[in-house]
């Protein structure tokens, strides 16, 4: 490395260290968000340039002379050598979902410090490494999926376990993100109208693409976006209309039922009519908003109002119960390490990589960028006044069922807030009330709206930006619900096809309806459970989702380690075993506490026991007891499944290391690339 280069990287390291130092040690004065940005950006740059490059060169030994599946299996559809920055953007758009936005917002209840450190360290040493290595493994295996690789490299148990785990995670994921939407739209005619309007807009886009201007996706997406903006203004009008406002003012249960019915229809309707056009629109809006938020944060540079550590590090937090360890590490999954990314890294992306070294920016770089999105979400949430943050995010069961009781409780915690302050804020954003808006989306929308409004327009347009942010979050959450229900249906059909062959056929209508209904009812049940939960549902469902997602990451890291061992790279297995061991400690501890803790707000069994002691055993109480027991069983199933795959993996590693087991790697054969530079 030349001297200028060395000086540059030394400067980056100093900047990152200063940022981390200020974030870690500054007390008393509010910290400016730029320190978080510098700490994160510097750390990602160092991780990318040195650690990821070391993994690429020494561990995986990427070879640009080797033809990738995109070249060898080129078919113009899935397999196509593509410009690395286009693949980078494509991959980033695929991995960036609501997780990196909602998780850090919820974890802000501990203060900004634990979340920031976990997001940065977790991504640099864990999440980005997992995405990068799985992308490499899939690329060397003609774009095979995680499940296929688990089956081939570890064994049948690994494959089946991975499939069942993914299916169960999908169910919990769909329930929890649907709950985020329900809590954001509850009693909000403006938000509900805007989101309801996106459905006919998507159908219009589908028809436009199918019959009027086939192939003009960018054109129809611009039209769709303008219509969505119009619907935000329409929503404001609706919220003031004495006729229409009551029609769009819905309770949590009514919204949950509406989303369940919607999920079923979206799963059964032709994809081109609703799902695909909405997916195009939501992906473009998502990329646009992420860029807008980055510009907004750089322009406004807000101070962080939340302290580095809150009093809730002791585990008594109102948003979710439990101490920093292990709960911070499962609450923030997607911004630090997410098992779901392994499904994307072994999906479309490996089929588009033109040169092996392109996996470096695509696999590691995209995850670093996603982690940066999580940092931005954390900044947006922590820029709110702490009293406001807790008033929005705390359920009535934790702070009291009236506004007066809620502000008294929250002020008593040392985070002053008044009813009047909350009322003015609610009026500014066009809502009746902002109390008990659990789920993370409303407080994130508030933070984003403040940042956007500060760049111009001021508080006068706070309402527009708030509902723009809600629309942005709900739009791609609903797309995930559409697509997830459909994928869940395929997976269930795949499993049931072994029992009764016609059920496995995706064209057999009774099978389609039955399996769609089964998937919708499964996640719908957990959604309903969350909606009627007096503690807001997030306290139960988000940790379950976090545990499941991190356990999927453990499976991905098991697959990655197995492949490294078989490649005779055992001396480097610490790269994947390190994050794996950490995730197993975190998730097993969290699972144990969620099942067996004697505190009813944490332990499912203790919660069931407490409910059993209530004198008046109504049907609602009996249902809650059943739900708590069901959650405990589900949590235990996750742990058992992952224990099986870990043991199976360790058996394979030991066998290969001792020489008693075949160390053959299932890579596709080496073929010299014929791809010319100008082709990519």
């Amino acid at each position, binding site marked *: 490395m030349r001297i200028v280069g060395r000086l540059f990287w030394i400067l980056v390291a100093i900047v990152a260290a200063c940022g981390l130092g200020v974030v870690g040690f500054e007390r008393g004065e509010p910290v400016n968000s730029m320190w978080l940005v510098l700490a994160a950006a510097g750390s990602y740059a160092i991780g990318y340039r040195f650690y990821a490059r070391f993994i690429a060169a020494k561990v995986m030994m990427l070879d640009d002379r080797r033809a990738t599946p995109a070249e060898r299996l080129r*078919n*113009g*559809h*899935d397999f*196509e050598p*593509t*410009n690395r*920055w*286009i693949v980078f*953007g*494509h991959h980033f*758009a*695929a*991995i*960036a*979902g*609501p*997780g990196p936005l909602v998780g850090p917002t919820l974890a802000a209840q501990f203060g900004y410090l634990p979340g920031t450190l976990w997001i940065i360290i977790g991504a640099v040493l864990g999440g980005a490494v997992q995405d990068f290595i799985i992308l490499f493994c899939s690329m060397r295996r003609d774009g095979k999926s995680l499940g296929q690789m688990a089956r081939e490299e570890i064994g049948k148990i690994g494959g089946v376990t991975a499939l069942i785990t*993914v299916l169960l995670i*999908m169910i919990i*994921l769909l329930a929890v*993100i649907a709950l985020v939407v329900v809590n954001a739209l509850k009693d909000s005619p403006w938000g509900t109208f805007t989101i309801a309007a996106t459905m006919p807009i998507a159908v219009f886009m589908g028809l436009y*693409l*199918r*019959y009027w201007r*086939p*192939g003009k*996706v*960018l054109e129809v*997406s611009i039209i769709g976006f303008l219509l969505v903006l119009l619907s935000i203004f329409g929503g404001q009008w609706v919220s003031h209309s004495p006729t229409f406002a009551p029609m769009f003012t819905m309770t949590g249960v009514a919204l949950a039922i509406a989303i369940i019915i919607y999920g079923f229809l979206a799963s059964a309707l032709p*994809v*081109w009519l609703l*799902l*695909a056009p909405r*997916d*195009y629109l939501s*992906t*473009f809006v998502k*990329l646009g908003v992420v860029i807008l938020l980055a510009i907004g944060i750089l322009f406004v540079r807000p101070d962080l109002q939340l302290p580095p550590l809150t009093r809730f590090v002791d585990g008594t937090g109102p948003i979710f119960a439990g101490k920093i360890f292990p709960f911070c590490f499962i609450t923030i*999954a*997607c911004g630090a390490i*997410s098992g*779901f*990314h392994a*499904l*994307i890294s072994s*999906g*479309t992306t490996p089929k588009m990589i033109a040169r092996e070294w392109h996996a470096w920016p695509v696999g590691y770089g995209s995850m670093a960028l996603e982690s940066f999105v999580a940092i931005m979400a954390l900044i947006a949430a922590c820029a709110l006044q702490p009293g406001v943050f807790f008033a929005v995010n705390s359920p009535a069961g934790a702070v009291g069922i009236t506004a007066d009781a809620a502000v008294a409780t929250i002020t008593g915690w040392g985070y002053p807030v008044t009813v009047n302050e909350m009322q003015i804020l609610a009026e500014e954003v066009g809502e009746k009330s902002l109390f008990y808006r659990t789920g993370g989306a409303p407080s994130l929308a508030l933070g984003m709206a403040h940042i956007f409004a500060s760049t111009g327009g001021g508080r006068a347009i706070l309402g527009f930006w708030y509902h723009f942010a809600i629309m942005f979050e709900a739009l791609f959450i609903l*797309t*995930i619900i559409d*697509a*997830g229900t*459909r*994928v869940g249906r*395929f997976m269930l059909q795949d499993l049931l096809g072994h029992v009764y062959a016609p059920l496995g056929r995706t064209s057999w209508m009774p099978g389609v309806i039955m399996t769609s209904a089964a998937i919708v009812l499964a996640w719908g049940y957990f959604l309903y459970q969350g909606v009627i939960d007096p503690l807001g549902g997030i306290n139960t469902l988000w940790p379950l*989702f976090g545990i499941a*997602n991190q356990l999927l990451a453990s499976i991905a890291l098991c697959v990655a380690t197995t492949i490294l061992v078989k490649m005779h790279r055992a001396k480097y297995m610490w790269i994947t075993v390190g994050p794996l061991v950490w995730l197993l400690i975190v998730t097993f501890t969290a699972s144990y506490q969620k099942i067996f803790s004697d505190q009813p707000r944490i332990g499912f069994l203790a919660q069931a026991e407490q409910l059993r002691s209530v004198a008046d055993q109504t049907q609602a109480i009996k249902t809650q007891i059943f739900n708590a027991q069901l959650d405990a069983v589900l949590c235990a199933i996750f742990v058992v499944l992952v224990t099986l795959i870990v043991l199976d993996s360790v058996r394979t590693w030991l066998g290969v290391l001792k020489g008693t087991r075949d160390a053959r790697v299932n890579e596709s054969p080496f073929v010299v690339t014929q791809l010319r530079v100008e082709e990519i």
Partner: protein
Amino acid sequence: MRAFFRVILGLLREIGDENAYQRHLLAHGLTHSPEEYRRFSDERFRGKYARAKCC
């Protein structure tokens, strides 16, 4: 700057499947028609929405 915008437009067209459609026409020696686009998108969506979307 021009190269940057070319990449951005390329990315948007890739996300919108417009590039994939052009490749499809080129690979099979076809010309654009509403029927061909419908055939292409049906095939494309079948694969695309059989995979989970990330959280």
